């Protein structure tokens, strides 16, 4: 019984970690129609900022907002310098489906090299600010700790506020409009360039949070090639696709589904099936719903 309960809890916390990256990817997708593979690199870089702040101030709680801001700044710079040019040069035809992906992959490599240059390829450590020891319930220890609880709450707050921004505010409408059709949005008076930069900045901030929380929750290590970050990217993207790339709630839902299914498969079926399970799950969900769990109805065709 406790094993089932703990498996559920593990699934939920793992899902909440994936959802952080998924949210960041959805943000960029929704505001600029780019699948941003550099997201993991951006998150990593912001986490290094956080790390530096911890070295100086000793406080994780100061580092967290700094990492957020750092992430936002980095993302804005990337949008300003690279994505704008990219949009100008290759926004149509077959290449438009792949060049942004390749560009962001290039960026990922670039960011990693930059981190490697400044911080070296050794491990750094961020110690979790809250206890990682599970709550005790009678004689049993639950698979949820103050830190994990904090992560789940942080994600809830993040998703709700971002969803509110997207669905209920003018900025949200402007973000969506510019993503779908920059030219018409311009004609309608939306400052598309600015709005896209804001979209990236939001994603960068979310990525910064993701990096800080993931590092503190996971092994605590930070290196340019952190395994966790590469995997976070892949699993975050898979989660976002499962959820339907256009929905923040979907991203969280997709991440939770992925987390729970993985936890149960790992516990009750086979310990080494992680990667293939992720693929099969994605395949099954997309076969049933080609646009992910929360997908809009397709428009008319003619």
């Amino acid at each position: 019984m406790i094993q089932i309960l703990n498996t559920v809890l593990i699934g939920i916390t793992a899902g909440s970690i994936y959802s952080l990256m998924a949210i960041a990817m959805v943000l960029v997708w929704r505001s600029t129609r780019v699948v941003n593979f550099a997201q993991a690199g951006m998150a990593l870089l912001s986490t290094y900022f956080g790390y530096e702040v911890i070295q100086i101030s000793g406080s994780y709680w100061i580092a967290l907002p700094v990492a957020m801001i750092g992430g936002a700044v980095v993302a804005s710079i990337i949008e300003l310098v690279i994505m704008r040019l990219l949009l100008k040069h290759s926004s149509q035809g077959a290449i438009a489906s792949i060049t942004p992906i390749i560009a962001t992959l290039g960026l990922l490599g670039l960011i990693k090299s930059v981190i490697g240059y400044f911080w070296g390829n050794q491990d750094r450590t961020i110690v979790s600010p809250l206890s990682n020891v599970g709550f005790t319930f009678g004689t049993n220890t639950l698979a949820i700790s103050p830190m994990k609880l904090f992560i789940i709450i942080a994600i809830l707050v993040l998703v709700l506020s971002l969803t509110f921004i997207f669905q209920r505010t003018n900025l949200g409408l402007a973000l969506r409009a510019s993503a779908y059709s920059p030219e018409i949005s311009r004609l309608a008076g939306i400052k598309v360039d600015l709005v896209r930069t804001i979209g990236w900045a939001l994603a960068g901030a979310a990525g910064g949070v993701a990096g800080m929380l993931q590092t503190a929750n996971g092994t605590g290590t930070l290196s340019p090639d952190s395994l966790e970050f590469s995997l976070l990217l892949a699993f975050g993207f898979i989660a976002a696709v499962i959820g339907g790339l256009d929905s923040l709630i979907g991203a969280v839902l997709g991440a939770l589904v992925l987390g729970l299914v993985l936890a149960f498969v790992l516990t009750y079926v086979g310990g080494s099936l992680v990667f293939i399970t992720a693929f099969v799950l994605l395949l099954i969900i997309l076969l049933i719903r080609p646009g992910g769990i929360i997908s809009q109805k397709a428009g008319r065709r003619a």
Partner: protein
Amino acid sequence: MHKLKSNNLLRLIGFVVFGFFLFYLSNAIDELRVYQGATVAMYVVAISSIILLTGYSGQVSLGHGALLAVGGYGAALLRNNLHAPVWLSFAGAVLVAALFGSLLGVTAARLSGPYLAGTTLALAVGLPSIANQFKFLGGEQGLIFDIGLPPASLGETFSQYKWFFWIAALTALIAMWWLQNLLRSRYGRTWRAVRTQSVAAELAGINTARSKVLAFTVSAGLAGLAGALLSMTISTVSPSAFPLSLSFALATGAVLSGVTTLGGVMIGAVTLVAIPEIADAFTQRIGASENVTANLPGLMVSGLLIVVVLFVPNGPVEQFRNRRKK
């Protein structure tokens, strides 16, 4: 209308001439370059497979490495267990990968851009880990794929790498010739039509789903062939030979080649092989600190990639053509 026939013939002649050139080249260059030549040939096939899929049929794959793996394992299993001759194990690799691709293609045909990207990415992450689930796949250390020594008739001094190169180059030439013909035929035309205007294509009587599945199948077959070539050049197949970064590298190569035309595929393939070496050499030349040596090659590769995507998004060949037109 006579032109058409001569076009096909000219193309064949072109390939034969280029083949002779490569033959000559293989005698003129040193062993390392010959080895790299075999790798280039492998990349040519692999990148073309992406160009077909993305540039023509409009489907994105970030998991082509997985299809290469299917081909590589297919070839090795055939060779090791059934003692198939080399050419047969290559053909087997094509068939196995094409079959796998057609199954995957059925799903792929329903998915739009990023969803397909996600699915193929998940495949590339997931598939190699299967090797450890089944004994006959040889686990992490993988299987041996040994094409044997060059025939004695070629002489004592004929090196193994030259043999690799001959096989890879010939295979690539034949595959490219087929592919060129195919892309210029109604199939290529149909793929492009479905990509740009699927409703209009359907109204013209094209079963768009079938057309996409066919593209995926052919592309996977080519990828399988590339996988067999790759396994030949490293004489083994193992899960770690097909990491996610291989899939990304292939997509990158396709962009460097100019996704929508086959014309630049050599450029993409050569770049993939040359850049790490150039970056390495450059780094060693300037002899900098540890942090620099470890990271400069990566920085150069990524930087080049971004520059190409930003300034020559259609690939160098297309760029050159456009320039000339003006």
